[in-house]
């Protein structure tokens, strides 16, 4: 059996993409993740391809339950994203997508911190092309901000890895204690990619600015690789419970009033990551299973939602709620698929989110973290309001915008169809998902108590939405943006630097001119004495020198005789 490092196939395979004609290219690109997936099935657990480099022991491939489930879902996400982009002929985006997916897969199997760093930066550099591919000045700037933050995360990871090696003598990527500078730097590096509160803005900034197909790729990999890394490196770190709870709650408020529906989805992505971060913080086997299961169902329903909004953007040229409405009339399939995604993220029974979210909430309750438990329930109600109802409602229903765009292209419909099928399949028959989890799991989501209480929560939240819309109290969808924390580095810090400049520049100018005056005066003085007309620069006649010598000589003799 031929074994190859997971992910590398997609990265190396990307090189051939621009050489192939369009007809063959799609089949070829789809074949890469399919073969890669098969490769995972035959790859035995353990360390592979290990070697020593300059005295460091590297483990490029480590296969175990945790890496495998992320490997599986990354391959599936890559395949779906590729099908969704079948109509596109831009080879730069195609290569970027493959290298990006391959790097994320490779990262999930990295057994040491250096290998992780290489793939970590790979995801950063490859993915920015999916934003730049929009080819506007705006996309360029957004991509730059994204790249600086992502590469910065990688630099922190490398610095942390070096310090960790100095402290422990090992580069092994395993569970770490959050003490000492090395693990702290690594933790922050993971936190940036996982979009921790206050480190999160790159996500909402960049994902809505990427191309129609690029955002589908983006939604799957970077943040979930970070969740994997946290689950591997920092399970049971209590601080993560609080970070995760904050993440689960605060983006909801923004999502509720955001106009760009792809940005709404970016906020909701952030909020769903919160569930996984809480689960990693709880750190029990059940909680980690929950994090992994939620990553799987999250990748699927989030990709589905981004695909449906991508299809809308592709057909209408906008994803802004204020300009959409009534699209169900001409895009009925996209509407249906979007609603499946919405039901899944809202965790309606029979949909994927119900299984995975329930594992996390149960694991949190079992460990007695009641504050986090309440926050997660609050977020569960909120998700329905902004993601579950708002996104489909304002795009496809609401007031008719008069637009009658064509239904999405066939390849998009197929990609959405497959994903929607998987969302429902996991919801109805979760056994295969539970079997693929890192630890043995016999969680029962469909108990009478759980189904009824969760339905109550969702139905009454829907009731609030209906009431607000009917009464006209629901915040209207306005053409506006809402300032988030990125305001600090996009406005505050530049402004502070500018106003400091306004104070310092005149002062600086005065000091300089005073100093220059001094120098000029000094030069003028020197010039006066030593210049062409200067007293000290005159040429003296030989006779006067002789006279002076005679005077000096006579003075000397006079003194000598005295």
């Amino acid at each position, binding site marked *: 059996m031929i074994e190859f490092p997971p992910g590398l196939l997609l990265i190396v395979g990307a090189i051939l993409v621009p050489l192939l004609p369009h007809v063959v290219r799609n089949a070829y690109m789809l074949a890469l993740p399919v073969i890669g997936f098969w490769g995972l099935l035959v790859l035995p657990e353990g360390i592979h391809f290990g070697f020593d480099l300059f005295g460091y022991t590297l483990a490029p491939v480590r296969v175990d339950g945790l890496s495998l489930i992320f490997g599986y879902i990354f391959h599936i996400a890559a395949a779906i994203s590729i099908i969704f982009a079948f109509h596109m002929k831009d080879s730069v985006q195609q290569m970027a997508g493959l290298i990006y997916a391959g790097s994320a897969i490779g990262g999930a199997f990295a057994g040491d911190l250096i290998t992780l760093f290489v793939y970590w930066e790979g995801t950063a550099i490859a993915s920015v092309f999916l934003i730049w591919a929009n080819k506007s000045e705006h996309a360029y700037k957004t991509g730059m901000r994204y790249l600086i933050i992502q590469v910065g995360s990688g630099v922190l990871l490398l610095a942390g890895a070096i310090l960790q090696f100095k402290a422990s003598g090992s580069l092994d990527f395993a569970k770490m204690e959050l003490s000492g500078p090395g693990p702290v730097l690594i933790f922050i590096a993971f936190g940036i990619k996982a979009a921790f509160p206050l480190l999160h803005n790159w996500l909402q900034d960049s994902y809505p600015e990427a191309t129609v197909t690029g955002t589908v790729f983006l939604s799957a990999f970077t943040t979930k690789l970070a969740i994997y890394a946290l689950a591997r490196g920092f399970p049971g770190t209590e601080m993560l419970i609080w970070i995760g709870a904050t993440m689960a709650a605060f983006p909801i408020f*923004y999502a509720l009033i955001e106009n760009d529906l792809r940005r709404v989805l970016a906020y909701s992505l952030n909020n769903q990551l919160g569930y996984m971060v809480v689960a990693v913080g709880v750190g029990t086997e059940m909680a980690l299973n929950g994090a992994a299961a939620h990553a799987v169902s999250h990748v699927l329903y989030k990709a589905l939602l981004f695909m449906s909004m991508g299809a809308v953007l592709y057909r209408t040229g906008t994803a802004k709620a204020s300009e959409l409405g009534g699209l169900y*009339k001409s895009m009925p399939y996209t509407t249906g698929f979007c609603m499946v995604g919405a039901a899944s993220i809202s965790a309606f029974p029979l949909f994927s989110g119900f299984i995975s979210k329930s594992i996390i909430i149960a694991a949190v309750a079992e460990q007695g973290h009641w504050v986090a438990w309440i926050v997660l329930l*609050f977020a569960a109600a909120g998700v329905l309001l902004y993601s579950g109802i708002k996104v489909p409602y304002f795009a496809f229903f609401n007031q008719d915008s008069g637009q009658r765009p064509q239904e999405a292209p066939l390849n998009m419909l197929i990609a959405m169809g497959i994903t929607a099928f998987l969302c429902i399949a996991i919801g109805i028959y979760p056994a295969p998902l539970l079997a693929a989890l890192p630890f043995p799991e016999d969680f029962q989501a469909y108990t009478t108590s759980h189904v009824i209480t969760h339905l109550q929560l969702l139905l009454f939240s829907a009731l609030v939405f209906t009431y607000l819309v009917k009464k006209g*109290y629901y915040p209207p969808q306005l053409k506006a*943006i809402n300032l988030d924390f990125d305001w600090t580095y996009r406005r505050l810090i530049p402004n502070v630097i500018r106003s400091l400049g306004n104070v310092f520049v005149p002062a600086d100018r005065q000091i300089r001119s005073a100093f220059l005056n001094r120098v000029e005066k000094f030069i003028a003085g020197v010039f006066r004495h030593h210049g062409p007309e200067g007293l000290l620069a005159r040429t003296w006649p030989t006779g006067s020198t002789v006279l002076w010598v005679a005077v000096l000589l006579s003075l000397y003799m006079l003194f000598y005789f005295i």
Partner: protein
Amino acid sequence: MADQKKPDEKSYWLDDRNNVKKLVLALYVACGLSFVADFFYHKHVHYDVENWIGIYPIFGLVACAVLFLGAKLLRTLFMRDEDYYQEADDD
């Protein structure tokens, strides 16, 4: 909106206000049924508070009210023009 509809376009089920009312009514009924269901089964719970009748519906209502008010507040504080960040040389 009727005035935006093209004259030859077919009418959709949701175009009829009565059908929308039916959907809303269905939601009311579903809410009512799920609330009443609390009286008829034994809950398996992690916390005692979950045993209260109607706790989940009430929690849902309160959560959404908090969200709604919070979002309104957020809007008054942080809403800016759409091209707030757009520099002069953009696009």
